[in-house]
């Protein structure tokens, strides 16, 4: 049995309003690939920041090879043999590979020696990279190799990798995995952070699962099914949802095979998304972040036009209509990003009210803005949603995240939409305010509106949704009534089903 390399004992870190890590303990052995698994916001990042010396724990401690280990800054962690490859690279586009590597080292060797070392390492570990290439010309996968090589040159005992495959192509993922296996065979321990279950099952020796800042379990992923992993990730505190009495009316919003290419290099394409939402019901859409949530919202709000015949509102094809026409027709939306997307940071709350309510609330007459009316609309939202602000003239960016969220959610709900689609409606909002927003969404549905809530908070979805569907790589699963759901089914819908599908294909 291999020796323990890093022993983590009771690490706790609290931020105002949230405990990011609560008494987390586990061991990483020499020469193993150890997965750190959890949903967004489970506390993975905070934990590795503590190991890498970026954040100091409130309580608890670590031992490295039996000696106390409490790095005050990353350079101390590096000296002790801990290296980290971040999800977002810190490289200079205008410099070449060798120069970038040198910038990240404590005592860089001479340029010619360094170039030779880079070649050696890149050959040894199967990471093809020319030290004289300019970084600006490299692909995301090649940039990651620069970061990895920078770490390997310091001969680390523990290599931390934060969601390394999120920016890679499948071929690049294969190359990376070969490298990681080779490192393991040479005795380097790797802490591998991810929420992709199949990757972890094929690569990792052990997995520690975090949920809401607490360690749920440590298991051997190759002996655990993807479904079981998903269940542990989502949590056993899952309360069986109750069927809520509601009377579904006629279908108000319908998607028919909506397919849209990815908006940018790191966007997610929407693949054949179909759904129906009736008046009076709440459809909850779950899924891990980055599986098409933003893209789905943009296609519904009208920011991105969809192919004709794919978006139907009250039986009318609105695919080719922009946000203004869709609002007129009763379809309102609330994007996830508050500052800069749902609201203009430097504009007042009054002006931010005009942003989406100008026509439905008749704040504009013959092209001229009725400022007194706009002010009373903003005041109405502030009062009904208990937005804490000195007044409606305050700039949006001066509000706390939770208060601004209440304002932008309230702005749409006060307009009494026929169909409302919101993404992460209670993200960063305190518990009382989150409950108020959820209640407002339920009230809206009770009045006959069709409500779609996209969220990564499963508890929230179970609490308010009548039916549940999950987004996975831009595909939307068929919606099921929440009363029929159990944790196993949800795990399947959120990723398990897709994993099984590929497993079948492999056979």
């Amino acid at each position, binding site marked *: 049995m291999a020796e323990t390399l890093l022993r983590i004992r009771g690490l706790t870190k609290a931020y105002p309003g949230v405990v990011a890590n609560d008494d987390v303990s586990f061991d990483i052995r020499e020469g193993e690939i150890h997965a750190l698994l959890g949903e967004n916001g489970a506390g993975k990042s905070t934990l590795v920041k503590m190991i890498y010396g970026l954040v100091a724990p409130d309580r608890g401690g670590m031992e490295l090879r039996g000696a106390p280990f409490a790095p005050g800054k990353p350079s101390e962690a590096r000296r002790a043999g801990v290296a980290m490859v971040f999800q977002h690279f810190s490289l200079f586009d205008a410099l070449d590979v060798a120069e970038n590597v040198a910038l990240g080292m404590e005592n860089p060797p001479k340029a010619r020696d360094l170039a030779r070392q880079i070649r050696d390492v890149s050959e040894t570990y199967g990471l093809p990279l020319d030290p004289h290439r300019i970084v600006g010309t490299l692909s995301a996968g090649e940039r990651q190799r620069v970061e990895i090589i920078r770490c390997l040159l310091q001969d680390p005992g523990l290599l931390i990798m934060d969601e390394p495959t999120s920016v890679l192509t499948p071929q690049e993922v294969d190359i990376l995995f070969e490298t990681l296996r080779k490192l393991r065979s040479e005795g380097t321990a790797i802490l591998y952070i991810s929420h992709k279950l199949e990757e972890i099952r094929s690569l990792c020796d052990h997995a520690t699962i975090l949920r809401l800042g607490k360690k749920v379990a440590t298991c051997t992923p190759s002996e655990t099914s993807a479904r079981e992993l998903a269940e542990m990730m989502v949590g056993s505190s899952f309360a069986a949802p109750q069927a809520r009495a509601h009377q579904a009316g006629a279908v108000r919003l319908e998607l028919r095979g909506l397919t849209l290419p990815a908006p940018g290099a790191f966007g997610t394409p929407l693949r054949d998304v179909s759904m129906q939402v009736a008046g009076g019901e709440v459809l909850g859409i779950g899924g891990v972040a980055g599986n098409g949530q933003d893209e789905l919202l943009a296609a519904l709000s009208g920011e991105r036009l969809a192919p004709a015949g794919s978006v139907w509102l009250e039986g009318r094809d609105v695919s080719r209509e922009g946000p203004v026409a869709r609002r007129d027709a009763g379809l309102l939306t609330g994007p996830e990003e508050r500052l800069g997307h749902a609201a203009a940071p430097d504009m007042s709350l009054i002006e931010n009210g005009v*942003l989406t309510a100008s026509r439905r609330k008749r704040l504009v007459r013959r092209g001229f803005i009725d400022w007194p009316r706009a002010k009373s609309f903003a005041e109405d939202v502030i009062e009904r949603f208990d937005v804490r602000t000195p007044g409606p003239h305050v700039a949006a960016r001066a509000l706390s995240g939770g208060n601004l969220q209440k304002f932008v959610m309230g702005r749409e709900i006060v307009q009494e939409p026929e169909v409302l689609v919101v993404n992460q409606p209670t993200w960063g909002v305190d518990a009382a305010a989150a409950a108020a927003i959820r209640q407002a969404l339920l009230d809206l549905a009770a009045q006959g509106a069709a409500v779609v809530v996209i969220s990564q908070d499963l508890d929230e979805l179970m609490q308010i949704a009548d039916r549940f569907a999950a987004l996975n790589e831009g595909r939307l699963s068929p919606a099921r009534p929440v009363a029929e759901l159990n944790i196993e089914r949800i795990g399947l819908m959120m990723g398990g089903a897709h994993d099984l599908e590929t497993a079948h294909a492999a056979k």
Partner: protein
Amino acid sequence: MIRLEKRPQPSQAWTLATPVLAVGATMIAGGILFAVLGADPLVAIRTIFWDPLFNPQFAGFTRPQLLVKAAPLILIAIGLSIGFRAGVWNIGAEGQYIMGAVCGAAAGLALYPSESVLVFPLMILAGALGGWAWAMIPAVLKVRFGTNEILVSLMLVYVAENVLASVSSGLLRNPEGRGFPGSRNFRNWEAAHNAELIPGTGMHWGVVAAFIAVILAYVLMARHIQGFNIRLTGEAPRAARFAGVSPARIVLVCLGTAGLLAGLAGLFEVTGPAGQISIDFNSGYGFTAIIVAFLGRLHPVGILLAGLLMALTYIGGELAQLMLGLPGASIQLFQGMLLFFLLAMDVFTNYRLRLGRAEVA
């Protein structure tokens, strides 16, 4: 250590104070510059800022010049400011100004020697259209192909300058001018002359147009939904798209308006103070208007005041060259300082200065 800390929201007081502080700082730095050049700094500053308005010897001549110089600056700057608010960077107003003058003059000269009252309105229309069309080139290229409007509009200034040189010695040359380059003089043609409306004040149709533009721009930006959309696009492009604003439309509207107003300024200049199309007709109003727009905080009333101030430094600068023998370049340097200090002071609107060591977070 000095640290800048972002304010929760832009400071109202600093927004108003920065132009005043910038003018003050320019006077101090400019005074040092003039002293180094061997002039008495106090006399130089007085010659630039005071004498053009109140010196009994020159004021009679220089005071009307204030409106004559300020009008094109204000007219162009108003147009530019609308685009700058939306993040549309039209740097080519000088070219739009030239093309407005050329097109307006050409439309008039085609009718020479008609004495119809319709000649001047027709010229105004042609001038506005000329400037608009010239601005549509970068606008359409940006919308269709995503080109950079800064580069395209700036390049088109040099094209316009060559068009100007060509027509003043070719197409629009005065047939009775004994072969000298330059068009007929509009001052000698009643129907096309943009004359002083009230003698001795410098008030001409261009000044009237500038005042109307200030009022309309104020109403547009403060009250109208289009003005709101323009500001929204500049402040938060994603939020603007979410609100349903078409970015392409904003580009077309902003560049079009700026071109239209610059073209008008060119037309009023060529038919009035300049009098004719000539190779050296343009005098940099289109570029100075950029400074005026920023000096006026992109606000219509601010631009009105900034235009008058800038006109004053022009007239006073000429006076200083004449009276004190200061080189022309030093006057341009002085005007450049004004923009430099304004932009530097601008930081304080959004940031607070903190002295002392940064706390470890």
